[in-house]
């Protein structure tokens, strides 16, 4: 059953965006100072790839089959190993090349980014059979916008900074809170889990 469910994952979208993220992130190691710029973009792309995992063009049929939403979501979550694996390879490559970044915090940012993309897709999947496009854009915006707007960056820090801390919550604090919110959102978006919680 799991193999059948996994076959329905839009692999070209997931693996295609993951490959672009891998090339982008690897480009960051080619030049000094590039990792701080390109790794956040690679992570935003990985979050975008994760957001496509739940896309189901035949949702009108699939949603009424006996296989529950929770099981389908759990099996499809296995596809997150692709963006997570690619991101881990980038983190390891950076750590091995002795690029100066707080790598444990970067690893947490990677996991959080992928989880964020998946959580947004889970919530959007309740309303649309193919939430990938909108969910990937939303995840990328959340991850990238703090880099543009200083007054947002003060409170939302999706990627750890090097050098003196500019104040406000750190990336680790941000992802600790955001990760819990994402897990709660995933749980709330699955009808079976919602029903189990209610009396």
């Amino acid at each position, binding site marked *: 059953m799991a193999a059948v469910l996994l076959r329905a994952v839009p692999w*070209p*979208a997931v693996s*295609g*965006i993951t490959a*672009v993220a891998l090339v*982008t992130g690897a*480009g*960051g190691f080619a*030049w*000094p*100072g*590039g990792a701080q*710029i*390109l790794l956040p*973009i690679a992570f*935003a*792309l990985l979050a*975008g790839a994760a957001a*496509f995992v739940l896309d189901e063009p035949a949702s009108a049929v699939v949603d009424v089959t006996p296989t529950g939403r929770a099981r389908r979501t759990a099996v499809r979550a296995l596809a997150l190993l692709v963006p997570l694996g690619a991101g881990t390879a980038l983190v390891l490559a950076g750590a091995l090349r002795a690029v100066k970044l707080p790598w444990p915090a970067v690893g947490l940012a990677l996991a959080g980014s992928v989880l964020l993309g998946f959580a947004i897709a889970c919530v959007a999947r309740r309303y649309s059979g*193919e939430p*990938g*496009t909108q969910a*990937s*854009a939303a995840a*990328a*915006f959340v991850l*990238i*916008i703090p880099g*543009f*707007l200083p*007054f947002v960056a003060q409170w939302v820090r999706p990627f750890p900074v090097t050098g003196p801390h500019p104040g406000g919550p750190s990336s680790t604090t941000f992802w600790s809170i955001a990760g819990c919110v994402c897990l709660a959102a995933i749980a709330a978006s699955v009808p079976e889990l919602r029903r189990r919680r209610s009396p």
Partner: protein
Amino acid sequence: MTALAGRETRRYVRNPVFLAAVVFTALAVKSWHANAVQEIGTISPYPAIFLGGFGMIAAFWLTQSTRRSAEALDVAPTTPQARTAALCAVAIVPFVLGWLSFGMFVRIQPLDGIWRYGAFSSSDRMAVLVSQIVVPTLGGPLLGIALARWVRFPGTAIVAFLLLYGWVSLITILAWNHANSVLFVMLRFFAPFTFFTLTDGPDNVDTWRGSPWFFVGWQLGLCAVAVIVALLRGAGGRRQRRLIRVLVAAAAVTALMYALTVAGGWNHPVVSHLGQAPVPIGHSPHPTNR
């Protein structure tokens, strides 16, 4: 055609991504204050990011949304080129907002102001602002329409946005580290957006090589190429041949603009200090400059 353009424009301005872009641009413009910045490049790119970048994503979605009804549209009396032209007309909305942002910027930071613009003349300062604030708001949506006409993958717009953002950020850092290298000058201008000035210390502004006005020409050339590429989709026979000829001509003019951009401007990057004449970088008596 006008009715079609009006209809597409109404759909575009109701798109949540475009509305978010307008809100973020308004917030950014609201944060602009005179004397708040040392160098214009720290605040000028917001309209390009939001109205240009987000506008590209909104235009991509708008164009792709017509794919599902392609069979019905194919029997409509309008040609694919007329529909594409109507879609391209929506770019006027962010373009107008880009000019408004430009007006706001010039109001708080007049063109005849001091060294925040680096060592550029008033005319070049205007070109820098037009290239950083106005033209990207036109080019972004046009790029989104061209991409949507040719690429089926729905995540293309967000991937393109992130890659362009990454490219401009990376090449800016590299150009800063290799300010005298012709190769990096060429790479810096091989983008739809670039910086012309940078600050790396108190009371000084670096001015990089390159001609701002020819860069505006390069950007407008890219806009023309995007429109023609979008129009080529679905064209056949004589119309296709004519469009290809126009595309070749537009690409040639764009390439010429690019070459003139790289060749123009200062021969060496220079640094300006408040109340002093600009000097080549490396010859500055101030310790903050390389």
